[in-house]
């Protein structure tokens, strides 16, 4: 399909990307494009300018620090997260990325794009909340760090402001994580999902039930279903699941994810 007319810019540095984004009202960052190009076909998004972040080495790469903290460049692809030796320090990352769409999408799609699009059915927003990731948002004025719980603000809306970019994601050390989802077909779009992390208590982040991931905490996996009930979820109904069914799925998936996390 022919897209609406759009300007294209390929900045040579992150600083140049900030400049392009800040000085063009209708400019939008283009990451992997596996969502954005499609929503542009449907005219659900119609940016006047695309600022292509592909090729900016500053936004790529996975580093493992001595204390086990992983720092992941926002333009790192799902495939890179799956094959990276460093990323195996937090195995859930590669495992969840391996269930996103298909090979072709995983080869182009990026962690930063998944987080910044903040589609409520995306896999990575709840995962980042569960593992306690910290997001670095940068712009011409400098950078700031935002915890994952405060990063997601609404459907398709994050703490990344005009003229800013999510540049990297820091994930603390840990292995006791789990993820469970009911999807449209094997590894398709999530109807409901839950990410869990055990570190003393259990942190579970639920996806597809609200505009942003819903964080629930409990003392152990056996207490998770009650904690989900206590969250008084009011998920939307759609052709795939009623609101009541999504609440039921949330309890089941949160428990499964928590049990998987605790068993590691």
């Amino acid at each position, binding site marked *: 399909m022919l897209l609406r007319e759009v300007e294209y810019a390929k900045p040579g540095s992150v600083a140049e990307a900030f400049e392009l984004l800040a000085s063009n009202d209708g400019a939008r960052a283009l990451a992997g494009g596996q969502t954005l*190009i499609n929503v542009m076909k449907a005219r659900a998004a119609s940016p006047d300018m695309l600022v292509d972040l592909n090729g900016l080495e500053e936004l790529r790469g996975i580093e493992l620090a001595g204390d086990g903290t992983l720092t992941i460049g926002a333009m790192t692809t799902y495939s890179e997260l799956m094959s990276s030796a460093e990323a195996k320090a937090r195995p859930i990352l590669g495992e969840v990325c391996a269930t996103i769409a*298909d*090979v072709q999408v995983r080869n182009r799609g990026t962690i930063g794009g998944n987080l910044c699009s903040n589609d409520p059915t995306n896999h990575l927003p709840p995962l980042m909340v569960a593992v306690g990731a910290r997001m670095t948002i940068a712009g011409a004025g400098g950078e700031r760090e935002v915890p994952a719980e405060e990063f997601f603000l609404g459907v398709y809306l994050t703490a990344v402001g005009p003229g800013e970019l999510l540049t990297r994601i820091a994930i603390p050390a840990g292995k006791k994580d789990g993820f469970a989802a009911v999807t449209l077909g094997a590894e398709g779009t999530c109807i409901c999902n839950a990410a869990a992390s055990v570190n003393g208590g259990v942190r579970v982040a639920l996806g597809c039930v609200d505009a942003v991931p819903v964080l629930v905490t409990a003392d152990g996996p056996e207490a998770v279903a009650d904690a989900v009930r206590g969250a008084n979820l009011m998920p939307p109904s759609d052709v795939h699941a009623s609101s009541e069914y999504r609440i039921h799925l949330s309890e089941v998936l949160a428990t499964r994810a928590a049990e998987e996390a605790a068993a590691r």
Partner: protein
Amino acid sequence: MDVTVTVNGTTYERDVEPRKLLIHLLRDDLDLTGSHIGCDTGNCGACSVILDGTLVKSCMLLAVQANGASIETVEGLSEGEELTALQQAFNEHHALQCGYCTPGMLMSATALLRENPSPSEDEIKKALQGNICRCTGYWNIFEAVKSVAK
């Protein structure tokens, strides 16, 4: 914008609008109509090509993003009339009926076999997850790929 791409070893230079998708550059500007447009929503995989060694769906990439890249399409697989072992296996195993998905299937399976010459059945299925076929039920496609796996 001026775009230079090398497709199957031949270098092309074209002036394209930024909004043009890579699949349209290949089909409309370069007359390489082997890569197909099935769904145009990133689901079906009929437009799959190998871009700088990486399998991608060319309907989810702007042509200008491929500037400077080396692209492989289904036209580049055979040497003249000589089919690759994989193409021959598709023939022998009746791995196509209408053939619409075949260019994408061949590119995905080619990318798989380069990376992993001895894939298990599960690995073959996972590698072809992004390619939809409405005729074969997939079985003969898996059989064809399996037959050339080392």
